[in-house]
């Protein structure tokens, strides 16, 4: 477990499931609403494979950020000149082990991170089924080698035809499978291990257990919002705001003086500091979770 992620059971289970699907399928979808750790799952799995000696390399594209021509390449009608596309270059390099790809790499993943749209995904049909070749308009045919896998990361498959859906394995990540708790744990661990501020850890742990119980958060999320947000997003802004305030506390002159003053009374210092942190938390909580509430701002305030 690297990058300070939490070895939580639900997360590990999803990772292992991903690995199992990849054994029998060469193409798979990772589906889940934003913020359910889709990216983290496959990244973690790639690192895990590396750590047990199966070198893994991946390349990410957002297929909707470029046009279909740019993705697969196109033939200039007048000059008959072939212009390569992002994906065709990538697949060819993987196939021939050119550039950064080497034959020693046991797994080579193409990650397609972006909305599924028949415009581009249907052109991958022959790659995704048992033919395993990418056929391009230039008559070129790029076969998939046994080490290559296609992972498509997407929030839903509403726009995909059954032809697409049936071709890949599916890993569905539910909102509740992993949730926001591991994220908060990682965040707390940062205060513990990197910043070495025990007081902050104790204080924030207390506030999280006090204010962020699942039922309350769920309840909050059901309220009317002026813009759609997910719990994960709100937690991210919560931690960002606290991080910023925390840095300010130790950087600006005034606050440093304040701390100096507080330190003069060593007995009460920890308590006072906690009070400051509580202020941070309350402020951040208000501006993260409260930010998008529409009419319900008033009850939330209380």
């Amino acid at each position, binding site marked *: 477990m690297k990058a300070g992620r939490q070895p939580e059971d639900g997360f590990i289970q999803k990772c292992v499931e991903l690995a199992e699907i990849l054994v029998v399928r060469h193409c798979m979808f990772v589906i889940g609403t934003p913020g359910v750790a889709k990216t983290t799952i496959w990244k973690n799995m790639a690192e895990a494979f590396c750590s*047990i000696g199966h070198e893994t390399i991946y390349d990410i594209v957002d297929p909707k950020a470029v046009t279909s021509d740019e993705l697969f390449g196109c033939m200039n009608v007048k000059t008959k000149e072939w212009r390569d596309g992002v994906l065709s270059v990538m697949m060819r390099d993987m196939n021939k082990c050119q550039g950064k790809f080497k034959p020693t790499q046991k797994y080579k993943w193409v990650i397609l991170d972006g909305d599924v749209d028949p415009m581009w995904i249907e052109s991958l049909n022959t790659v995704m089924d048992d033919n395993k070749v990418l*056929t391009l308009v230039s008559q070129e045919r790029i076969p998939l080698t046994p080490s290559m896998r296609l992972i498509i990361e997407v929030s839903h*498959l509403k726009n995909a035809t*059954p032809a697409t859906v049936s071709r890949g394995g599916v*890993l569905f990540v539910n909102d509740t*499978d992993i949730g926001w708790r591991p994220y908060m744990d990682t965040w707390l661990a940062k205060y513990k291990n990197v910043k070495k501020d025990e007081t902050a850890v104790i204080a924030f742990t207390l506030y999280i257990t006090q204010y962020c119980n699942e039922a309350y958060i769920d309840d909050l999320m059901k309220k009317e919002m002026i813009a759609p947000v997910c719990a994960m997003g709100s937690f991210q802004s919560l931690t960002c705001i606290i991080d910023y305030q925390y840095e300010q506390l130790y950087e600006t002159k005034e606050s440093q003086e304040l701390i100096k003053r507080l330190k003069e009374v060593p007995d009460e210092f920890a308590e006072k500091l906690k009070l400051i942190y509580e202020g941070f938390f309350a402020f951040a909580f208000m501006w993260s979770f409260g930010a998008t509430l529409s009419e319900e701002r008033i009850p939330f305030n209380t």
Partner: protein
Amino acid sequence: MDLMSMNASKDSETFKEQLLKWQKTLKTIDQVLVLWVKVQKNWMRLEPIFLASEDIRAQLPEDTKRFEKVDAEWKGLMADASEDPGVVAATNTEGRDKVLEEFISEIDLCEKALNEYLEQKKKIFPRFYFLSNQALLDILSNGNNPEKVNEYISDCFDGMKNMKFVEEGNRPYRVAQGMFAKDGEYVQFNSNFQIQGAVENYLCDLERKMQETLKGIIIEAKETTDEWATEKPRELWLDDYCSQLALLATQIVWTEETIRTFDDLESGSESAMKDFNGLIVARIKKLIERVRGKLTVETRVKVITIITIDVHSRDVIKKFVDSKIVEQSHFAWASQLKFGMEKRNPKDDIKQVMSTICDWKTWYNYEFIGNTGRLVITPLTDRCYITLTQALNLSMGGAPAGPAGTGKTETTKDLGRALGLQVVVFNCSDQMNYESMGLIFMGLSQAGAWGCFDEFNRIKIEVLSVVSQQVKLCLDAIKRLKPNPANVQFQQFLFNDELIAIKLTAGYFITMNPGYAGRTELPENLKALFRSCAMVVPDIILICENMLMAEGFDQAQDLSKKFMTLYDLAKSLLSQQVHYDWGLRAVKSVLRQAGGLKRADPNGSEYEILMRALRDFNLPKIVVEDRKIFRDLINDLFPNMDPPRAQNEELEVAC
């Protein structure tokens, strides 16, 4: 623009001269720059081809000279320009536009010659049509270096990966000994293959060599089948031959034995068919035993392939027994894909393989396909086979249509494989235009290969109407050639104003999903050229049973029933999610998983193994609300069972 409006103003008289001068200069700059960029682009593309490749220089001496001249002048011009980098000076030199225009026409000539050269090569070795120009140039420019060409062999031949060379004297890579399939299977050539001459010629030789080698081996394989009952039982015999031919020989024997059994029936032996059925069942059992043992991946695939086809043979014979079919002329027998050995010409001394379905006959084509595994044959695939072959009989194309995951493309490919033909699959997209389609048709016709156009109705309607003309041309040519294959005049036809050759084996197939988003309706004139075949509901239960059996399960029949019940119930009882798919492809991947689990634990309960595969493979995609229902369903079908999840300790620790 500004200059022009200035010019138009009435106060411009004082600067008139200056104005006109600048107007003219800027205009020239614009014109020259456009030309300049164009020359540069084309020069960049052609430079590595004409200057770096010895082979092409030798093949196109005149154009090389022409290009060298342009190259030298172009470099001089660039040097001039770099000395005085100002745009005005660089572009307004007297006659510069003339020079550049000349370059363009010269380079165009070179390019045209190059394209013609490629066309010519493609005609000699038609499989080059299925390569990109870039790869083709790479092959041609490395023609004298077979080691390099070897890397591209897999692009020209569907099943072959590369050749095995032997050292001979001081020139390595001149003599090849055998060929490797993509999956690693190795087949030795009947004699050493000498690489001589130009690349397109020796690739043609290689194609011939491949066919002759396989032709020789199948005769030997067929002869040794006599020893099945004596020294060499079948389950060991198959180790001696490559998967493709072991299977072919098995099918030839099955056809012969069935015909003999019919003869026996006629001459009064009533239990002949029943006995034959018993024999097949015993043979399959031996193979299944072998699959359970420790085998290399390669041999396992081979044995599984043969079991797959054997099970179908058994089903056919069982049907004969059950419905008391006694005549050879009965449709149930006539409609099967049968193989036999016959002499192609009465004068020939060796026999060749001939395949038959109903009144359609063709010679086996001996394309090396390697150890790829074959499809499970079900009544639906049988029907598709008949339709497709009858379409060929009538010189038409075939068009299996139906929803996703019913095996349209696979069935076409499988039929091609069964006949030893090269099948090229194209994924059609809306980017395809009539020119690229034209090239494909030229390639298919000349190579005598089958083309399978996947998702055909994604092509734009305006392209389709041209395509229908193209298909018609090809099919008409076949129609003319068919009654008199020896007639040289009919072996060529006019396509896109070019006379190209056609082989009788060429076939054109399109598969479609009617009614999906982004699909067009086919024009009527195109529809008339293809014989359609509906493939809607695949016989999943049969496929499932067959695959389980091939993976070594004893209780295949019962298990497959449970499997299908679960999927049927899941389809109707779980919530409707777009990403749920309970079709053929999903079934196959679970079966593959189950096969793996079975091998890991050969003595465990088969029910537990299948349940574990079903549960662990489907749960990842099931949404939270449905989890309980799915668990209940599975527990109802496999009562009192709760095998632990297959643990992958290493991975879990690594996470």
